[in-house]
């Protein structure tokens, strides 16, 4: 097994854990946490591909940084959404916001 | 076995750093109490040892011998993980500080980023303490700590970046080398606004008065460490002083020329500058009243962040002009 594959394995582990958590969690905060795991895995895989594979290492690291920035932006928004949902529905459980209320 | 073995030298370096951090905490507690006393025209610690020098040791003994109490409905894991996490980054942050001309342990070309990213972890430990204690005051203190550190990290980083721009490197040794021995050759003299912004944000980052809202005792009893007894509290305390020292060391290296100085050898200059800044921070605590929370955030977002951005822009323009000329 090459080193590249090992790093991909770690990234895929995070991916699997992220999907697992997304499917298992019922609260928005739990899902956000799972999503962060997933994004971490993506960043790891991209950086590994470019560091050890054929790509441009600069591009790989920058893409990884980009993913981090994206994660930060997404977390900001989701936290705001969680705040609104909690204020409106009383808790941050996705079941309690699944109904349409006028 | 020679000292050249990397592992051994690393271990020795770590032991030295831990010893330094611990001794520094003890000495700084004494200095803080003495300065506090003198600022209020009273003597400060007096009775244990000459000039009360052994008072912090006695306090440490007391803290160590106290029972460690875990509140009944607290989350044990988070509750005891928090003080450990608050001290954990300290030795790592000490590694890139340029104490000696050629400190053998680690010389990183990303030293500044290393320190700043690990200092940011302190806020996580405060969060853990706040959430783990299951106490309203702790939770409020933690919420304040988050808002404060997240906000003030921005002007801190921007001010530090200004010095990085001027030196062209993130290695603290090289930043020092880019400055001269005389005060007018220091970045802090060339760019006093950056130094000022850095110092203010540093005080806020380390949760020191006048920005000690996370532990404002008149409002939140003791903020995030309300529930901690014995060494749980002691470790928070030690970590606080270690962070003050680290951030003052960074300021000394970035803005005050670090080891640069006439006559005396470099390490002494560095220590002198670092402790002068620490003294300033301590005296600031006993001079200014605590700010209100909205004042704190206003100060950060409406004053310091724009000022830091403008400053970094101005610095770039001046540097370009100098380069062109």
């Amino acid at each position, binding site marked *: 097994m090459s080193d590249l594959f090992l790093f*991909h394995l*770690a990234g895929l582990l995070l991916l699997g854990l992220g999907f697992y958590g997304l499917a298992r969690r019922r609260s928005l905060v739990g899902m956000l946490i799972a999503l962060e795991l997933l994004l971490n895995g993506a960043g790891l895989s991209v950086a590994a591909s470019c560091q050890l594979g054929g790509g441009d290492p600069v*591009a790989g690291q*920058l893409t990884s940084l980009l993913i981090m920035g994206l994660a930060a*932006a997404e977390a900001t928004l989701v936290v705001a959404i969680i705040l609104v949902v909690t204020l409106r529905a009383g808790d941050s459980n996705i079941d309690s916001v699944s109904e349409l209320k006028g | 076995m020679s000292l050249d073995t990397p592992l051994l030298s690393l271990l020795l370096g770590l032991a030295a750093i831990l010893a330094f951090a611990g001794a520094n905490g003890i000495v700084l507690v004494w200095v803080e109490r003495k300065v506090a006393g003198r600022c209020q025209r009273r003597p400060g610690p007096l009775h244990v040892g000459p000039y009360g020098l052994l008072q912090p040791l006695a306090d440490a003994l007391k803290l160590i011998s106290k029972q460690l109490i875990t509140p009944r409905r607290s989350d044990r894991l988070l509750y005891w993980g928090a003080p450990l996490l608050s001290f954990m980054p300290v030795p790592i942050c000490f590694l890139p500080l340029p104490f000696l001309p050629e400190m053998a342990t680690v010389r990183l070309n990303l030293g500044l980023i290393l320190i700043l990213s*690990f200092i940011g972890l302190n806020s996580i430990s405060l969060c853990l303490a706040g959430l783990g204690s299951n106490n309203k005051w702790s939770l409020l203190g933690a919420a304040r700590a988050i808002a404060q550190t997240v906000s003030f990290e921005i002007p801190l980083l921007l001010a530090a970046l200004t010095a990085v721009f001027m030196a062209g490197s993130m290695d603290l040794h090289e930043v020092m080398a880019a400055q001269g021995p005389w005060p007018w050759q220091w970045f802090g003299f060339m760019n006093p606004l950056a130094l000022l912004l850095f110092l203010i944000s540093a005080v806020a980052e380390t949760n020191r008065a006048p920005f000690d809202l996370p532990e404002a005792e008149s409002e939140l009893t003791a903020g995030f460490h309300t529930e901690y007894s014995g060494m749980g509290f002691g470790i928070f305390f030690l970590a606080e002083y270690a962070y003050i020292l680290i951030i003052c060391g960074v300021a000394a290296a970035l803005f005050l020329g670090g080891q640069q100085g006439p006559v005396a050898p470099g390490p002494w200059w560095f220590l002198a500058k670092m402790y002068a800044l620490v003294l300033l921070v301590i005296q600031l605590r006993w001079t200014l009243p605590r700010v209100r929370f909205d004042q704190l955030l206003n100060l950060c977002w409406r004053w310091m962040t724009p000022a830091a951005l403008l400053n970094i822009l101005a610095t770039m323009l001046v540097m370009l002009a100098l380069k062109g000329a």
Partner: protein
Amino acid sequence: MNSAAHIVYVFHLLVILAGGLVATRAVQKDRALVGLITAMFGVAGMYLLMNAPYLALMQLMIYAGAVGVLIFFAVMFTRPAQGQEERGRYLKRPLMAVAAGLLPAATLAAGAFLFIRQAKAQAPEIPVVQLGAGLLGRYALAFELISVVLFAAMAGGVLLGFERRRRR
């Protein structure tokens, strides 16, 4: 990687696994968050292993220092008065969740195993200067784009956060 590096790799992998499991399985949200931060530390270690120290530090600074702390805020907001955080209404069939995680990961892992042909043995260390040149030169558009996205997200977050509780 030499054998020492392999040991370090396995250690980081275990850290990621443990952190991830806590993050996805813990009942209390604050513990889940601690798991997430642990996993982030593991990933930072991975970055160090692949010779990208700048990325590792950024991982700590952005993920652990900023995103983790942000999620702490969310946890505090949604903290119920007392007791368990998740009210035991998990997915009916936990197997489905496992499958949801395992299937894509396993497929991709198999693909990676089959199709990785050439790989460097030693990753190059990119100096920060080169990264900065890339950010301001070739990849400037992406850099600008992410700043716009961040700004939009912040503005959106502020707008959402200012919404008052609805009057009944």
